[in-house]
């Protein structure tokens, strides 16, 4: 035994005699994780969060979250002698006088953008492969919660420097709060400690940004990962992979090395981008004052769709009985996002209600094999993308020499018309891909080799695909529509007939597929 092995043994002995953890540790070090690049998306989100904690802690050492008015006398000459908040002045100090301060600010901001990108792409992966199905519905809801909190946390973060751009963002947030019927004005005055902008808001959101939300994030991420751990990771279908097993690499050492290495790569790439690409140069915007604004005001991308919805809203307000209801703010700012996020959170339950499928699923779906779900996803994406595009309508108008009014009308009409079109097209593409899979299994793949038969006919030689590939293309389930008769066995019309009819309709739409290769098909091909 080498000295190193003896030390390792002693440490393990010390820990086990005090915790009895040996059996548990052994089991978990051998935990198996399936390998696929798309499983790294959630990891990027996790690592970005760690980068955010590290860089954010660094920034708090110099940032002064106060709206007290100071006169700037720092290194950046163009703003010298100007009145500004201590928050803005200290952000300038971090950017120009703290060595590595600007780099850390840019790492923090880029990491926040990557965090949100990773969350959204991870969510899309989970959605389109059906990883949210039983038993993982809780984790889906936690994920939707993390997405929502991420948007709020990001908004609060870029609001902290109190520059002209971020102050404008807070102004808009205040207007949304103020638009809430009955209590809006009161909530706004409580949140801002009086009339906008006041001197209380930035210190308050600082506490929320660095303490309250990160704490909730840590708790939710912990539960999210513990559930992944406990329920074991899903895997893509393929030879040897079933609903009952997990095929992959053990945590120790392979996964630890890969995942640990990947953390450093994410950190390194984020740092590289922060080193070479400027982001949020707040010194160019100047300090916030409600009487000024810069053209081309844009939120960060994860808020852009919300801003786009607000921009395209029709100018509707109701004035009645001495009160005002601003539909032009309430609908795009609260009602539509509320519907979107509720629908997102409830989707696993809606789908299982439609399919009637209450079984556990650990094998992922290929998106083409579930055309309806894939099409709904494409529809939701189209909706959000149009809103996002409209959020940048001023920039697009400028860059492409278009009229803002035309872009706005395109968005207003497009957001209603294009999502259903996206649904239909996506569904058709999925079913066509299923047909192509069927062709591959039955007739093999085209080789591009033409052969002339003795009687003069030219044919292309098809080559049979591998048994592994055949299995991949045929192992999915096609379970048909639910049968929900309007009249029950006793001949009585069911009381919940309308709900059943709806469910039955949706179930039929859901079951629309190109039939996969059956035993019968194979027999026919043999006789051919």
């Amino acid at each position: 035994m080498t000295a190193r092995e003896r030390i390792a043994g002693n440490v393990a002995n010390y820990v086990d005699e005090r915790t009895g953890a040996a059996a548990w540790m052994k089991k978990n070090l051998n935990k198996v994780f399936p390998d696929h690049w798309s499983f790294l998306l959630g990891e990027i989100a996790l690592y970005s969060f760690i980068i955010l904690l590290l860089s954010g802690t660094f920034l708090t050492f110099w940032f002064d979250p106060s709206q007290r008015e100071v006169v700037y006398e720092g290194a950046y000459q163009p703003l010298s002698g100007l009145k500004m908040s201590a928050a803005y002045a200290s952000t300038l100090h971090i950017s120009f006088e703290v060595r590595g301060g600007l780099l850390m600010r840019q790492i923090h901001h880029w990491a926040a953008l990557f965090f949100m990108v990773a969350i959204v792409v991870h969510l899309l992966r989970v959605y389109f492969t059906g990883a949210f199905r039983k038993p993982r519905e809780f984790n889906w809801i936690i994920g939707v919660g993390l997405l929502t909190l991420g948007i709020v946390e990001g908004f609060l973060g870029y609001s902290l420097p109190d520059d002209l751009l971020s102050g404008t963002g807070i102004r808009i947030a205040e207007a949304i709060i103020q638009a809430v019927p009955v209590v809006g004005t009161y909530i706004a005055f409580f949140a801002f400690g009086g009339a906008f902008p006041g001197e209380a808001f930035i210190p308050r959101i600082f506490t929320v940004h660095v303490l309250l939300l990160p704490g909730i994030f840590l708790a939710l991420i912990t539960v999210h990962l513990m559930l992944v751990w406990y329920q074991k990771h899903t895997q893509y279908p393929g030879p040897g992979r079933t609903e009952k097993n997990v095929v992959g690499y053990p945590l120790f050492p392979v996964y630890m090395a890969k995942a640990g290495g990947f953390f450093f790569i994410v950190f390194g790439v984020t740092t590289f981008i922060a080193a070479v690409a400027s982001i949020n140069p707040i010194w160019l915007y100047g300090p916030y004052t409600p009487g000024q604004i810069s053209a081309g005001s844009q939120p960060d991308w994860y808020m852009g769709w919300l801003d786009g919805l607000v921009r395209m809203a029709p100018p509707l307000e109701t004035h009645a009985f001495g009160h005002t209801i601003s539909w032009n703010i309430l609908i795009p700012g609260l009602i539509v996002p509320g519907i979107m996020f509720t629908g997102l959170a409830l989707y696993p339950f809606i789908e299982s209600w439609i399919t009637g499928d209450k079984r556990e699923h650990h094998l992922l779906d290929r998106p083409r094999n579930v055309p309806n779900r894939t099409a709904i996803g494409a529809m939701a994406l189209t909706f959000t993308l149009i809103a996002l595009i409209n959020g940048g309508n001023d920039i697009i108008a400028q860059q492409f020499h278009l009229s803002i009014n035309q872009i706005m009308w395109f968005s207003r009409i497009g957001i209603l018309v294009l999502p259903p079109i996206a649904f239909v097209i996506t569904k058709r593409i999925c079913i066509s891909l299923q047909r192509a899979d069927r062709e591959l299994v039955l007739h093999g793949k085209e080789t591009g080799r033409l052969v002339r038969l003795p009687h003069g006919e030219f044919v292309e030689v098809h080559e049979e695909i591998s048994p592994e590939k055949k299995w991949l293309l045929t192992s999915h389930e096609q379970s048909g529509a639910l049968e929900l008769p309007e009249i029950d066995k006793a001949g009585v019309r069911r009381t919940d007939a309308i709900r059943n009819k709806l469910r039955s309709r949706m179930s039929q739409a859901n079951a629309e597929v190109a039939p996969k290769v059956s035993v019968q098909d194979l027999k026919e091909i043999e006789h051919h």
Partner: protein
Amino acid sequence: MAHEIEAIQDPGIPAHVHRKADNDPAAAKQAERQVAILFLLSALGTILFIVSYVAIPEDIFVFIPVMGNTNAHQLFLGLGLAFSLFFIGMGAIHWAKTLMPDEEVTVQRHEFRSADEDRDALVATAKEGAAAAGLGRRSLIKRSLGLSLGLVGLSPLLLLRDLGPLPGDSLSKTSWKAGTRLVTDPGDRPIKPEDLEVGAVAQVLPAMIPGQDHRALSDIGKDAVLLIRLRPEEFNLDAERLSWTHEGIIAFSKICSHMGCAVALYEQQTKHLLCPCHQSTFDVTRAAKVLFGPAARPLPQLALALDSEGYLVAKQSFSEPVGPSFWERSS
């Protein structure tokens, strides 16, 4: 459905293909060297980082294509840190991929549902506990507990009351009163009509009252006004609103009636005001009527007059609240 006969049978996990380094000690040695080189590159990155921190002054700018003028200190600090982190990651992953075991392992899953007897036992335990506590029988306890728990939730809400003052009518009021002089922002100079040429636009604020040496941002947020001079015949206003202008000078609240951004973009040709936040467009010649965008109300117009010294003043305060809508707003 689950029992249907599959047309194609599962061929099972494909046979494992060994890597070069698994059998060839020379290849393994080479992989080891590659990993070491990657780790050494990381060390070089850290050295670059330290050198940049100590040796490159903070005010040196270098020109780099695409990036433009770049602060050399921040750039090399960042590059050093990026390389030091990135190559640790590359090294670890290369190590895992070339030298650590790459044979896939299969383990079995088990259903999460507990055994039936355990589930029944749990239900029994829960029922027993509930019965022992008398939850079902003692409704008085149940109700009074519910009441007190509900009330306890009120305390933190009540404690939040002192977060801010009640709004009162502060959203409906501005500093503009009859006779308040319009002053330039910045500069605080009073304005005579001849200071503004036709086509000019200026941001103004109410003159500070004697003894005031400072404007709160929350006041600017309601008081900011845009002054625009057109030719009088260009207006298309009713008699009252026309009387609020002075020799072609018209004043509007600069705070957008949609969400309170500063309506700062004035198009001289079309005489439109555009809010850069959500593109609401207002027609200056028609009392800031909304032409386009999400705003539902015109910008409030400030009535103008001249004082005895010939300076522009407000004829009266705003006739309606400025800024975004709120529940208590009556029109």
